[in-house]
Structures are given as structure tokens and as C-alpha cells.
């Protein structure tokens, strides 16, 4: 540091004045400035520069797209024996070596040992760095938003550490993996320490790890006053494992929850994946999680906060209440978290159950039995209630009986079973309960010719003449969508169709859907585009509002909501489906390849979609279509075919039939 001595003494003098309590507003600024410098000086010797090594497979423009450094970054010496932490951004998985520039300017080679995958951190080994000072971590529970934070890096200059000052913005981010700061961070100081004003290390600056990074790459936030650091305390806890060369993956439990509200919902287990840590530890559908590792769990979010920071291989304590009300017993399971689950194969009975109110534990009522399906072959008839479900496979035990399942409980119980597995259904009709054994079958891919008729929903049908066409949305809606609403069925399945963008839709277009909507008992929403030439991001918000408006006119069946489109409308349908998330159960597109860089989630109980793809007029489009089908099928989704009906309008009949059978169980 070339801070002139005279200036330093001036600063010291002013600090004294400030401490002395002089009523002088200018001096605290300088006292703080001196404190920043002193804090930086404490850790500077442990902050090193990381240079990209060209030998790593991902380089250049492609590398930048993949979030890999093309320039210098930073690292932190956590042990003078030569242990340095850096980020995956600077040293990607493909790198077999890295170059570390020490504070004295020496370049040394470094070898990646282990990685903390969820935190995006890699531990490097170099020759001993005896000059590096010991670093002191700040205990997590002493952190408070608002306190000073300083990000220190060597990406700008190997000779002198860079300094950016801010405050702690939040202590819990990325489901507990990181803290947030408003100090300016960029790829240049990723891997460097975020320190407090006393020079203690809060964490290691990194792009936002884990899930939220999917929405926005962490590296894109560098200029936005949003920076992240993973807790040093957490890293030190796993340092011996990283030093031993272990790669620590995110820990997966293998359960899904009944509630669709992933934040505030009750932490009641809907399904336990076969072969998952949860299954091996004896967790069951219907269990309500009350604590994880002694931490109280009241909502799904609490459980996620407790599990997300843990790694594969970690054993956690999961306390659950099993059974109802006063009869509930407290059970503790000790699952060892896994890095991955065996792929999920969706098994079905071949029935559609009547829509229910999610909050009520009413037994599921079978509305329709798919002709020729598993339940049909076993002699199950529509109209009865499912009072219980018992898996009959060898793995099951007495306690696996799911009593009086609700729709969600029935779906959850099925999600934990595989095609070919046998279940005994207790079916109640009036006061009689009969036991019927059904061998589960694989989820179908193509739309069956016969689907649940409108009358199955309890309505009276009424044909084309009884179909109502309504404009949705209030005066503030720029391009109000049209809704085609059949008489009868309530709650009603809903299909949202995006054709070619051309501004507002007119009644004639709606008329073309009337017959199909009436025949299948499906409501159709036809949104308009604000721009006459293209679908844009502005239109997405309108779709969500259209669904709400329709729901106000006629209750919607949440298990049967689908989006579909052709050409540009199909591409937009992908985006809308992504935005709707689990609320959307099906996507059907024609001549609409998956948008580039579109993330496809693996099919999981509750998120799996049924997709219909068609098109491919030329060779190139046909190749993309095959690639898209493969990709979606590999992710475990049901992928069927949307036939080409020429240019004579949308394939209304097929799409409405599909929407009517979407909730297949």
C-alpha cells in the first residue's frame, strides 16, 4: 500500500477526534475509510489471483455463455499448507489445473481437489503459502443485514487487492446457501473474501448458487447492487472432505409435497420416490414433517431451508407426525441424502378423478375409467370413491395403507410406485367397500379416442348452442382474450391457444372452437397479442389474468390446464408454460421448436407434463422436432404427437380431448 505516511497520521488523528466524540460530521467518513483499509490489510495476504488455464475444455464465446471465466478471477487461501478456494466460474469442472498468482507475484500451479457443487466452490492445492495469514470466519448467527461488508479481490491487479464496500443485504439466500451484499462484485472478485469491518471473513464471493440462478445467470447481476457470498463457516466444515478430493453434490431426499404452494404449504409428504433416501429411511406419503435436524418445520419453505445447505451423503434427522389428529405418532427417520434419484417412471391406474377442493380431505371420486386401461381391465367402474390404496409389492409393509385418499394423496401414493406394480384399491359405492387389485401401467403418450365426456363432470352438457363466448378482463386489459365456455362441467378443464399473433381475437375465431369445446367439455381461452406482429413478454401477464378471470366465471379444474400453439404462438406457449410452472399440466405445439437455452426440468411427481409435438415441414425442422422429443422424453415427460391438420385452423377437437384427459391417474 502506498498510502503516504503523512496522510495516514492525519487519518489516525481524525479517528482520534471522531472517537473523542467531537461534533464533526466529516470525520467518521475518514475513520471508516481507515477501518476499511485496516480490514483489507488483515486478509490481503490470503487473497490470490486465479488465472484461467487455456487447457480447460470450455473456452471462448461458448465458455462465456456457459458462465465460465475468460479472464482473471480471485481465490482465498484457507490454509497456508496450500489450500485455496475458488469458484467453479474460474475453475470449471473441465479444468484439470489452474494457475494461482500469489500476492508476491509468483505464479504457481494448482490442482483442483474437491468441489462443493451446490455452492459453486472448488478447493485447489498449491505448494505451501507460508506468508498467507490465518483467516478468521464470522459465525453465521452473528451476521446482521446492514453491517459493513467489503469484497476483496485480485482480479483487477495481482499486486494490490481491489476493494469494494457495501453492506450485508440479507443473511439467507438461495435456500440458505449464501448471504447477499450490495458491495460491487463481478467475475473479477469471485472467489475472494467478503469481510466485515474487523477483517473477519463472512464468506467467499460467488455467483448466486442453486435454484434461483436458473432464472437469471448469477454472473448477470454484477452491476445490479446484488452480490452473493457462500458462508466460510459452511466451507470450513466440509474442508477435510474437499481436501480429500470429494465432490459434494446437493443432497436429495426424494419426496414431494401435497400442497402446490411450495412456500407456505403444509409440509405433508405427497409421494416418496421408489429407491430414494426418503423411501429407504421409511418416510411415507401422508407424513407431516415437523422438524429437520432439530430445526422446527411449519411450512414447506422451512423444510427446504433445512435441507438445501446439506450435501449428498449427509445423514439428516427428519421428524414426522404419522397418522391423523390425536392418533398421530412422532417418528424420526434418518435418511442419507443422495446425489441423484433413479429416473421416475410415471405409473397410472387409467382413471380421471373428479376435481376437488385442494384443502379438503375428501376421498377421490372416479369420474371416468379409460377404456382398455389398467383400472378398466380390473373391473373398476366410474362413480365410486377410492377409500384406500395398499401397494401389494414385496417392498410394502402394513403401514403403507393410504386411508381415504384425497386426490392429492392418491396422486402422491401413485407417484411412489412403478408401472407393473400392483395395488389394492378399496372402492366405496354407497356404504359398500370392495377391494379391487390393479396392476399399474405406464403413462400413455397419445390422446385416446375416448375421453371423459362433459356429463362425467356432473353437468348436463348442452351441445354447441349452449357454448358461451365471453370477453375476459376488465377495462385495464389492453387486448382482452376471448373465452369459449361450454355449458355443464364444473370445475372445467381449460386449454389456452396461441395462434399467429395478430392483435385482438374476434368472435369468428372463437366460433371455430365451439364444437370441440362442447364435445369435450373444455373451456378454451384465446388470448390476443398486444403487438400485431409478435407475441411478447407483455402478453404473459395477460394470460395469468385471463385464467383468473375465467375462474371467476366458472371454477377451473387445476389438474387439467394446458397451453397450446402453432408457429410463433407455439414458441410463446413454451414460455407461458414455463411461467405457469406446475399450474400447467400440458403443452402442445405445432411447428414450434423449444426455445434455445430453455431449461427442461426432469419430470417429477407434481411437475411432470404431457406434451404433444408436431410439425417439421422441412428437414431442419424435422431434425429439431426429433431432438426436442428426445430431450423431453429423456427428462421423463410423456410426449405424444400433434398431427398436422393442414392450414385449416387449429386441431381443436384433438386438443380439447387431450385437455379433458390431462388429469389421468
Amino acid at each position, binding site marked *: 500500500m502506498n498510502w503516504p505516511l503523512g496522510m495516514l497520521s492525519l487519518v489516525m488523528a481524525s479517528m482520534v477526534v471522531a472517537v473523542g466524540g467531537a461534533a464533526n460530521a466529516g470525520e467518521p467518513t475518514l475513520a471508516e475509510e481507515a477501518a476499511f483499509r485496516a480490514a483489507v490489510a488483515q486478509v490481503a495476504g490470503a487473497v490470490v489471483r486465479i*488465472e484461467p488455464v487455456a487447457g480447460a475444455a470450455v473456452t471462448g464465446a461458448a465458455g462465456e455463455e456457459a458462465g465460465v471465466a475468460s479472464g482473471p478471477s480471485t481465490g482465498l487461501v484457507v490454509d497456508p499448507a496450500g489450500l485455496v478456494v475458488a469458484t467453479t466460474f474460474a475453475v470449471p469442472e473441465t479444468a484439470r489445473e489452474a494457475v494461482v498468482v500469489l500476492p508476491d507475484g509468483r505464479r504457481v500451479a494448482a490442482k483442483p481437489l474437491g468441489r462443493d457443487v451446490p455452492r459453486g466452490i472448488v478447493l485447489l492445492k498449491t505448494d505451501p503459502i507460508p506468508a498467507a495469514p490465518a483467516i478468521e470466519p464470522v459465525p453465521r448467527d452473528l451476521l446482521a443485514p446492514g453491517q459493513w461488508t467489503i469484497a476483496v479481490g485480485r482480479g483487477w491487479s495481482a499486486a494490490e487487492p481491489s*476493494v469494494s*464496500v457495501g453492506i450485508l443485504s440479507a443473511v439467507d439466500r438461495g435456500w440458505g446457501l449464501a448471504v447477499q451484499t450490495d458491495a460491487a462484485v463481478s467475475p473479477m472478485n469471485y472467489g475472494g473474501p467478503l469481510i466485515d469491518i474487523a477483517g473477519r471473513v463472512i464468506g467467499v464471493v460467488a455467483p448466486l448458487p442453486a435454484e434461483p440462478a436458473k432464472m437469471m445467470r448469477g454472473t448477470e447481476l454484477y452491476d445490479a447492487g446484488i452480490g452473493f457470498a457462500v458462508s466460510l463457516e459452511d466451507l470450513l466444515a466440509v474442508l477435510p472432505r474437499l481436501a480429500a478430493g470429494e465432490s459434494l453434490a446437493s443432497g436429495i431426499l426424494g419426496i414431494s409435497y401435497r400442497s402446490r404452494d411450495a412456500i407456505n404449504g403444509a409440509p405433508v409428504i405427497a409421494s416418496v420416490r421408489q429407491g430414494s433416501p426418503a423411501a429407504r429411511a421409511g418416510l411415507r406419503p401422508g407424513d407431516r414433517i415437523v422438524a429437520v435436524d432439530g430445526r422446527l418445520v411449519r411450512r414447506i419453505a422451512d423444510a427446504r431451508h433445512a435441507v438445501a445447505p446439506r450435501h449428498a451423503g449427509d445423514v439428516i434427522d427428519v421428524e414426522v407426525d404419522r397418522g391423523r389428529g390425536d392418533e398421530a405418532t412422532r417418528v424420526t427417520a434418518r435418511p442419507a441424502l443422495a446425489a441423484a434419484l433413479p429416473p421416475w417412471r410415471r405409473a397410472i391406474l387409467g382413471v380421471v378423478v373428479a376435481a376437488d377442493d385442494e384443502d379438503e380431505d375428501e376421498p377421490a371420486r372416479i369420474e371416468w375409467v379409460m377404456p382398455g386401461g389398467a383400472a378398466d381391465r380390473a373391473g373398476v367402474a366410474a362413480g365410486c370413491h377410492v377409500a384406500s390404496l395398499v401397494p401389494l409389492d414385496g417392498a410394502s409393509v402394513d403401514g403403507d395403507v393410504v386411508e381415504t385418499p384425497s386426490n392429492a394423496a392418491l396422486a402422491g401414493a401413485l407417484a411412489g410406485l412403478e408401472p407393473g406394480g400392483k395395488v389394492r384399491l378399496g372402492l366405496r359405492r354407497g356404504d359398500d367397500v370392495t377391494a379391487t387389485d390393479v396392476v399399474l401401467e405406464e403413462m400413455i403418450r397419445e390422446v385416446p379416442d375416448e375421453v371423459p365426456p362433459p356429463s362425467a363432470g356432473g353437468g348436463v352438457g348442452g351441445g354447441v348452442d349452449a357454448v358461451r363466448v365471453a370477453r375476459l378482463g376488465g377495462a385495464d386489459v389492453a387486448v382482452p382474450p376471448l373465452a369459449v365456455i361450454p355449458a355443464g362441467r364444473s370445475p372445467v378443464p381449460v386449454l389456452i391457444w396461441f395462434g399467429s399473433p395478430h392483435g385482438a381475437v374476434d368472435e369468428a375465431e372463437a366460433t371455430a372452437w365451439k364444437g370441440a369445446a362442447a364435445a369435450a367439455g373444455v373451456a378454451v381461452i384465446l388470448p390476443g397479442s398486444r403487438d400485431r406482429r409478435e407475441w411478447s413478454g407483455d402478453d404473459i401477464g395477460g394470460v395469468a389474468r385471463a385464467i383468473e378471470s375465467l375462474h371467476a366465471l366458472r371454477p377451473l379444474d387445476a389438474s387439467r390446464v394446458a397451453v397450446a400453439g402453432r408457429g410463433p404462438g407455439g414458441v410463446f406457449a413454451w414460455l407461458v408454460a414455463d411461467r405457469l410452472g406446475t399450474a400447467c399440466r400440458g403443452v402442445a405445439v405445432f411447428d414450434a421448436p423449444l426455445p434455445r437455452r430453455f431449461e427442461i426440468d426432469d419430470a417429477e411427481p407434481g411437475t411432470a407434463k404431457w406434451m404433444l409435438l408436431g410439425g417439421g415441414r422441412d428437414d431442419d425442422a424435422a431434425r429439431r422436432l426429433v431432438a426436442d422429443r428426445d430431450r423431453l422424453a429423456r427428462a421423463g415427460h410423456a410426449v405424444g404427437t400433434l398431427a398436422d391438420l393442414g392450414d385449416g385452423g387449429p386441431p381443436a377437437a384433438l386438443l380439447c380431448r387431450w385437455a379433458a384427459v390431462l388429469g389421468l391417474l
Partner: protein
Amino acid sequence: MIPCRAMVFVGALLVARAVSAATESSPQLVAATAAHSVVKIYGAGGLRGLEAYQSGIILSPDGRIATAMSTVLDSEGIDCVLDDGRRFEATLLGVDPRRELAVLTIDAADLPAAVPAEERAAAGTRVLAVSNMFGVAVGDERASVQRGVIASVVPLEARRGAADAPYTGTVYVLDFTTNNPGSPGGAIVDSRGRLLGMIGKELRSSAGGIWLNYALPVDELLAGSEAIVAGRSVAVAAADTTPFDLGLLGIVLVPDLLDRTPPFVEAVVPGSTGARAGLAADDLLIAVGGRAVGSRAAAERAVGAIPAGDPLRLSVIRKGKVVDCELGPRPTVAEGRAPQGAAP
């Protein structure tokens, strides 16, 4: 017309007042003092998304104003709006293309000139930035003030579009978003209100690819503006980026087939300069003269940038260790063509 000497006296008085105000002052006073010396500049632009406005710093009480060299100044009339709201038409005195600096004059007197800091500031120094960013200060409104610290004091390695920035001297990298539309020409001041630097134009770091927030240090600013005022021509010294073929030193790199081919050594001609320096096949070149190189093309450019006759040092990774190889003075291309050891 006030006599010249009196003018200087008044100017000095103003400066003295400003400094005394700042030494005993709160950030509010410092901000106000600094803002007195910042002007808003309006000129040409508005085409292709380029702004028609920027910022400037009053260098002397008699109307010399430093600003960033840009298309804003390509105008018949350049308007300067002072902190007190007065509007003057400015004349472009000259430009320093290397520092991307311009000096304007306005016909005014007794202006509150900025007080330059006497030494370079170090990383961690608290600063305020004052500029006409985004043109949000309309009419006679005061320029916008932001706060932050100097993140780093480093040579500028930056690009604008595909071209390298002409200035490669030292800059202050700042830890806050200072380099916005309209900000170029604005002032960076320390906690005493002393001018540390001038906010530069929008640039991207060629090292990290990120947008830069930086300022030209005041000593460079003053050296550049003095040269402009003295009428000295300031030429842009073109950096030598002609790639140097390492084959001339007997070092055969892997063929350059990829976008960024890793600079692995394929073979070393026995008896050549490279062989004598200890280079060997399968070495991965990581630095030339202490500067990191990430590709074969970058390595050859970096060798080309070392003046002929200067010592050439190549750093390689070999079996997990960094090895420095001294190759002696870099030959000229002609010298290099002289026979290199035994022919293969």
C-alpha cells in the same frame, strides 16, 4: 473587465473557501463543493442511441473545462450549463486522442475551479462521483452525486466494441456504477472534495468482459489538458499487436484450429533458443513476460508486444508445476529468420 491579477486573486479566494469548507466538512458540504466545479455539456448526438449530453470539470477560473472526447463535441454549438444555472456556448480548444480527453473554453470569469488532489489515491479511498448521468439534472438543476470507494488502481485494459481503447495508462476502477450515459467528463472527488479524476467513457474490460466503472486520474487529466492548451500535438501511439511467430525461436505450438486454441508446445527444435531456454513438448504456455495468455493467438500477440531486444520470459505449466523459461532478448523478425540450431 476585471484586471487579470484581480481575477486570479478572486479565483484563489474561491478555491481557498472551497478547500476550507471541505476540510471541516460533512459529505453534504463536500458534495456541494464538488458539484460547483461540474458542468453539464450539451452537443451533438441523438443518433443511433448516442447521447447528446455529457459532463465536464472546470479546470480554471477563466473558463477552461475538461471533458471526455466524444461525438457530443462534434457540434456547431456546444453548450455548457454551470452549477449556478448559467449557460455558455463553449469552444473546443483541442483533444488528446490517447487519453480521450478534450478541453473546452467558455467566456466567463471567477469560475469555481476544481481543486486537484496532489497524489494518487489508493484502493479503498472513499469518493464521491458528480456527473450529468442520464441527463436527469434538467435546466439549472445540480449534477447527480453518488458515493463509493476506489476498488483498484490499475492500467486500463479495455475495449469499445471490437477495438482496444487507446488509453492504457493507470485508471481508478470504482466500486459503484459511475460510467453511465452522460457521466463521461464528470468528477471523482475524495472526502475533502479534492479532484481525484475524471469519469471516462463507457468501456468493457478486455480482461474480465464486464462493463467498467473507472476514472482518468487527475495527474493524467492535467498533463493532457496542459498539452492541449499548449497546442502540442498528441498522437496515439499504436500498440504493436503484430503476432510473433514462436517458430522463429524453435518453439512449435499446436496448430491454431479453435477459437481459443490452448497454447501447448507441440515440439521444440533441438539446439534452438527455445530448447536452450528449457522448453519442452507438452508444456502449456500460461504467461508471456508475466502477463497471462489464454490462447495461442494471445500468446503470439503478447510476444509481439514485447519490444525487440527486451528480455523475453515464457511461463509454462509442466507436470503440475509452473516453470519460467528465460529466452534472452526478443529477436526482430529478421533476426529470428536466421538459422535456428539443427534443422529437423
